[in-house]
């Protein structure tokens, strides 16, 4: 007589949560999640408790009160009567300016150095090696301080440019003179001529007007937009569109006949002529800086704090970008350049048409991190007195209002947003250049 045993019942027991591999990973995840939430709630609760213990509130109302302090570099209008929010905005623009200029410079220097480091010329490649090793192995803060010190210690005081009547009588030259008569490099900044526009009025009247002459400006509330700049952008955009069409036509001709028509002078004309005509019509002229009182006035002052910060960040980050570019190029097999040479392409063209497009796939992802690094490193600005977001919102505003938590959270949020925007833009670009698989 056969004794049939029932298959074990598949009932759920609590121990299965740990011993059954089907449930174990889920159990661990749930436990970790609970612990994490507990930690978060502890943090939050601790904050609330401590704020209450210190009789402090948590609100962002201070952003709308009067700031009361001045900022030396203002890309848009700001006075000490503006709000703290406005001051933070000025700081944000200064951060972005330094980051954008720094990224562009770093990319240019980085790509050139990276390519040159692979050069067959012994001297050039060694020099580039020295540059890369020097810059990436010294903390960036030291480079920033060094740049600021060099700029302020080796340049003349604005006073040295002064020519007094006695000096004229004695035929003495001032201790310092302006470069080409239009650019003054002082120990505070570089004074460069300012472009001004003027339509239908005498120039003196336009120059006296703080608003731009020419087409004028539109006030958007938060900031003002120069119509002159807008018109120039539209015309230049049109020119670029036209050159694109020209390129497509040339491609079509090349496909049909095998001969590529000469287009470079047409491109040049299309790009330059309309913009130049517009600028002439708007009455473009340059106001040269002049020494008035303690400082130069009339031109645009590029503060040394900005130059030092941006240059040092660009040179530092360029050293990393150079290595990334070198790695990208070395990742392309030698066969590619040999094949290009066999087709009769010259080395420069091989680089531009064959190597770099392929290398970009390797280069872009680490390049994103370098851009993010550079942007975040701009927060070292206070070391050289550059008023970035950290200097205004996270510095003076935080200190004068005592709203540490609010200012820090706001600042973290802003840096996070900037970083996410940069990385999403770069990811879109990465998608455009990556290997297309069909």
């Amino acid at each position, binding site marked *: 007589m056969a004794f049939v045993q029932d298959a074990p019942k598949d009932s759920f027991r609590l121990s299965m949560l740990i011993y059954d591999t089907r449930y174990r990973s889920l159990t661990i995840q749930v436990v970790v999640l609970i612990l994490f939430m507990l930690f978060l709630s502890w943090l939050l609760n601790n904050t609330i408790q401590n704020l209450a213990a210190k009789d402090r509130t948590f609100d962002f109302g201070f952003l709308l009160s009067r700031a009361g302090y001045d900022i030396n570099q203002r890309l848009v209008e700001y006075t000490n009567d503006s709000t703290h929010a406005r001051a933070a905005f000025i700081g944000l623009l200064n951060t972005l300016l330094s980051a954008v200029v720094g990224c562009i410079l770093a990319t240019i220097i980085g790509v050139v150095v990276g390519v040159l480091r692979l050069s067959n010329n012994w001297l050039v490649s060694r020099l580039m090696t020295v540059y890369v090793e020097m810059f990436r192995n010294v903390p960036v803060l030291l480079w920033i301080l060094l740049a600021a010190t060099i700029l302020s210690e080796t340049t003349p005081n604005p006073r040295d440019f002064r020519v007094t009547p006695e000096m004229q009588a004695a035929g003495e030259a001032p201790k310092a003179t302006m470069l080409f008569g239009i650019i003054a490099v002082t120990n505070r900044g570089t004074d460069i001529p300012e472009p001004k526009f003027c339509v239908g009025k005498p120039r003196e009247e336009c120059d006296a007007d703080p608003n731009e002459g020419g087409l004028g400006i539109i006030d958007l509330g938060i900031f003002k937009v120069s119509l002159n700049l807008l018109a120039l952008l539209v015309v230049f955009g049109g020119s670029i569109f036209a050159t694109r069409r020209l390129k497509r036509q040339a491609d079509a001709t090349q496909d049909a006949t095998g001969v590529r028509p000469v287009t470079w002078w047409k491109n040049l004309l299309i790009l330059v002529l309309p913009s130049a005509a517009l600028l002439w019509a708007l009455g473009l002229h340059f106001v040269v800086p002049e020494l008035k009182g303690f400082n130069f006035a009339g031109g645009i002052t590029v503060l040394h704090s900005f130059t030092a910060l941006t240059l040092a960040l660009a040179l530092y980050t360029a050293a990393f970008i150079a290595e990334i570019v070198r790695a990208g190029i070395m990742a392309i097999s030698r066969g590619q350049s040999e094949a290009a040479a066999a087709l009769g392409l010259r080395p420069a063209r091989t680089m531009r048409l064959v190597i770099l497009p392929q290398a970009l796939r390797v280069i872009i992802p680490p390049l994103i991190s370098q851009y993010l690094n550079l942007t975040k490193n701009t927060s070292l600005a206070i070391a050289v007195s550059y008023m970035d977001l950290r200097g205004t919102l996270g510095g003076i505003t935080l200190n*004068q209002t005592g709203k540490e938590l609010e200012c820090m959270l706001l600042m973290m949020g802003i840096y996070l947003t900037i970083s996410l925007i940069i990385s999403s833009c770069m990811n879109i670009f990465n998608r455009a250049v990556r290997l297309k698989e069909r």
Partner: protein
Amino acid sequence: MKKSVFLGTLSAAALIAGIAGAATLDDVKGRGELICGVNTGLTGFGAPDANGNYQGFDVAMCKALAAAVLGDASKVKYIPTTGETRFTALASGEVDVLVRNSTWTFMRDVDLKFDFVAVNYYDGQGFMVKKDLGVSSAKELDGATVCIQTGTTTELNLADFFKANNMSYTPVTVADDSEGQRQYLAGACDAYTTDASGLAASRASMPDAENHIILPEIISKEPLGPLVRHGDNQWGDVVRWTYYALVAAEEYGVNKANIEEVASTTQNPEVKRLLGVEGELGEKLGLDKEWAKRAIAAVGNYGEIFEANIGSGTPIGLARGLNALWTQGGLQYAPPFR
């Protein structure tokens, strides 16, 4: 079950938060060390000397406090703070007391929740320029570039002063005094502005002090003093009365040298109470009888501290001025010890 764990954690967190805010005096005694927030380096007020030991007018206050509370003036840990970090350091409990040329203002007292316990130096904001600039008044600074320390009241005063006089200026905001001096000496700014006492201290440390002048205009009131966290009144009282003990000592002619003699011979009841010969003022503060005696013996009276660190005999050479005793036409005045 989960809920009870959650609530348990919450109450534990609340308990920890509650303990953290308890009496600073007990914390200091328990720790056996006073943590004092001082300047990163302002000669005469608070700066490390050649051996790395902090010395100065403000630092003497820390030492007096340590002597009064712990019985040993050397049991102080100095935390250097910048204009920007000082208030956060005090509010977070990183330091017990902040003695760092900090101006008593409404906002700091009321909104930032601090208690300024006394004014140890009555000051005002001034300007320093190089002699060869040819400027003799702050009203001639229209269009100038001015170096200024961030996180100070001077930033706001400067904006107000130039606005009131319808002048323009370019601020160069520096992180601390040393960077300010560097920029000023390099000529990156025409004028350097901070409290007049700070200017005198900075000038004293410059290699060519005689080439710099401090302009006559004082553009603000800057009462500088030690401050503690709001709400811990017992600790506030200890700091306040330790300071007044130093002032009172000067008034009654008690100094470092004669303190033992005075304590044994004095017939003045107020001095007897001050030095703990009579009465129990110390016990009321939560200290022992001789707290004030130890403080005075350790650093001297207010006048001695002033002369030793920033007075006319030092390179800084500040006159007593507003900081003379009230009996000599100044503002330093200690309430009665009774």
